[in-house]
């Protein structure tokens, strides 16, 4: 039995908070609480990110429901003596809670918000399996184990859940494909190689609620007949890896992983593999190759992973966010899930807001939320009261759009209907002070660096795109540069071996379409240096 405390102070210790000094603040807070003999009444609880990244180290005091922002070690004495001892809120540090609730919890501007994926992040101690269980954790697994595997898949199919990594493949269909394969072994793989620039949502889920992934993968194992799950986490996510390993160990100790789970005949084990800094390993076959100790290069499709995946066996590969949706769907039903979002896209999306935006951070909003709502209502607008220069949605492999697209609702169909990509949910805002061409040159440099080199269109094409963009930036482009760029885009789309190469044109084509004058001006101002006229 846990001790009952009258006051609880929650402090996020996700990577972002730690690098702003959260651990130092936490240690000093605990020490000061002991000094004032408050240790029996006040508990300090570590939690995952609250989704507030622009307020430095944040503390939340419950049940008072007071949030403090930009807390430094020198503030601790005052918080303890004023708030904890005398019950007086330290006003100079208090932050408007509506700020956080607007971004993460409640309804605002007429659009109801629902936390499905982030239901626990910031509310529970992610390292405590008991707190996860207290919030219906592992209840979905227990419910699934009492159903037939086919019934579990049917619930997911009916929910219309689609993959959240960018491709949007129906999850129930994928699980069903693996379930009907006859094989001595099958695998459940979680793609946590979050590498799409501007995406940091999976990190928040893994650090803030790791058990949700453990539970969902066990459910996937039961539904498809798999007994081994592997989470492939990118190598830089040191804390995500640690949290996940602890969650796996605790779940195993509780009999929620391992042999004979919850007294049934079902067995499931989980392992963590780490990435080595390769963007291409976000591609499902490249990821499986990497787990098999190979270079992360994609394979031919078909066969697809549900037929021949890891070690040649039928394999489910789902994104972290996709898995995090699974337990609530099983508990609340498919109809409940479909009540959020749009006809083409059920549920919510976790968006990563970054760049020149006031409230940088993570937002979970229903599918169909517009760019304007994300940038102005949740994001608080552009820093310094400036105007938008351009936006990039969906990641580096996503569209570059202008203010004219602000009212486009974002979901899986917005690319088709409005040429604005949803991708992994990146909303990167650049103010009017950011020049477009150097930004695109950086995007080109990124693809050139991250191309795995397997197929010629991507390996050589990314170098050519980079060369053209660099020439436009330095005003040394030759008159045919833009035609060559357009031709290259067709080559990528039609001949690249994998989805990553095929997605390279998204940023450049959309930028050419939405900002033609920027390219034309750069071209008009260009002078080809004589010595290098033959290059490119």
């Amino acid at each position, binding site marked *: 039995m846990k001790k009952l405390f009258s006051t609880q102070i929650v402090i996020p210790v996700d*990577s*972002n908070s*730690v*690098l*702003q000094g959260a651990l130092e603040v936490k240690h000093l807070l605990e020490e000061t609480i002991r000094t004032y003999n408050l240790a029996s009444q006040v508990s300090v609880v570590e939690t995952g990110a609250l989704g507030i*990244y*622009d307020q430095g180290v944040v503390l939340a005091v419950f049940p008072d429901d007071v949030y403090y922002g930009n807390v430094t070690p020198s503030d601790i004495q005052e918080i303890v003596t004023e708030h904890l001892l005398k019950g007086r809120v330290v006003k100079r540090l208090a932050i408007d809670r509506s700020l956080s609730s607007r971004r993460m919890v409640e309804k605002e501007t007429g659009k109801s918000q629902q936390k499905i994926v982030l239901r626990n992040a910031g509310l529970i101690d992610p390292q405590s399996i008991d707190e996860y269980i207290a919030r219906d954790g592992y209840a979905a697994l227990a419910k699934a184990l009492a159903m037939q595997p086919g019934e579990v898949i049917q619930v997911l199919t009916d929910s219309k859940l689609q993959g959240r990594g960018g491709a949007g493949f129906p999850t129930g269909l994928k699980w069903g494909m693996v379930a009907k394969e006859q094989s001595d072994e099958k695998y459940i793989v979680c793609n946590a190689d*979050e*590498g*799409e*620039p*501007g*995406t*940091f949502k*999976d*990190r928040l889920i893994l650090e803030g609620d790791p058990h949700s992934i453990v539970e969902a993968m066990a459910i996937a194992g039961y539904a498809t007949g798999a007994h081994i799950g592997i989470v492939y986490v*990118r*190598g*830089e*996510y*040191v804390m995500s890896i640690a949290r996940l390993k602890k969650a796996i160990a605790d779940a195993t100790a509780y009999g929620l992983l391992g042999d004979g789970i919850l007294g049934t005949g079902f067995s499931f*084990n989980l*392992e963590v*593999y*780490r*990435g*080595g*800094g*390769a*963007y291409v390993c976000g591609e499902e076959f490249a990821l499986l190759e*990497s*787990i098999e*100790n*190979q*270079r*992360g290069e994609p394979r031919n499709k078909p066969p697809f992973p549900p037929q021949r995946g890891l070690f040649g066996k039928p394999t489910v590969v789902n994104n972290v966010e996709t898995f995090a949706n699974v337990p609530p769907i099983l508990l609340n039903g498919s109809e409940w899930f479909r009540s959020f979002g749009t006809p083409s896209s059920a549920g919510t999306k976790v968006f*990563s807001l*970054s*760049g*020149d935006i006031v409230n*940088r*951070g*993570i937002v979970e909003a229903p599918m169909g939320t517009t760019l304007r709502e994300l940038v102005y209502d949740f994001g608080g607008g552009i820093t310094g009261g400036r105007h938008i220069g351009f936006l*990039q949605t969906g990641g*580096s492999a996503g569209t570059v759009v202008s203010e004219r697209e602000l009212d486009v609702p974002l979901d899986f169909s917005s690319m088709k209907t409005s040429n604005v990509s949803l991708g992994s949910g990146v909303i*990167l*805002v*650049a103010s009017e002070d*950011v020049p477009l061409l*150097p*930004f695109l040159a*950086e*995007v080109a*440099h*990124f693809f050139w*660096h*991250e191309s*795995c080199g397997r197929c010629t269109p991507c390996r050589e094409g990314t170098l050519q795109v980079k060369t053209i963009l660099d020439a436009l930036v330095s005003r040394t482009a030759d008159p045919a540069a833009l035609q060559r760029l357009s031709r290259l885009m067709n080559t990528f789309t039609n001949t690249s071996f994998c989805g990553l190469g095929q997605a390279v044109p998204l940023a450049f084509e959309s930028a050419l379409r939405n900002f033609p004058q920027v390219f034309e001006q750069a071209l008009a101002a260009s002078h080809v240096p004589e010595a290098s006229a033959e290059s490119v």
Partner: protein
Amino acid sequence: MEPDKKVQSPEKATALSVEDRAFLQEVVERDRVEHHGRVSYMDILFEVEHRYGNFLPGEVLREVARLVGTSVAQLNGFVTFYTMLSTKPRGRHVIRVCTSGPCHVTGAPAVMAELERLLGVGEGETTPDGAFTLEGSSCLGICGVSPALMIDDDAYGNLTPKDLPGILAAVRAGGAQ
């Protein structure tokens, strides 16, 4: 790149000691247990790289290849694919500056330029004293506090060029690995 800026560690390329071999064997066996009879080259090589000064000397790779039962060529192909692994000597601390979109928009170019000035080396190079290797990196997934960088396993965010001397000094002071 000027050749005299490269750090050479010839002593690392000599034959392995008994302790080295025991260490490598232990790392591989521990990983085999964790992965139920399989091994993860990545896990093993991260740990090994850490011990040998942020890179994988040829002799070490040869021994790891023998222990995991593969060829040196295959293992070398694996290592050279992943940017977090290196077969070339690096400094005691590896600085990875994110240059991707969100950091670019909020000031990464100025951060990189200032680091090059402070360290006197370019991207991909190591300081003459062997303390730092400066690398550009793709997105580090901490875009909420851009521009950001990592030094070894520690992340630093909301950077301005004037923050950098203090960070470097702190790492130098605390960092005799």
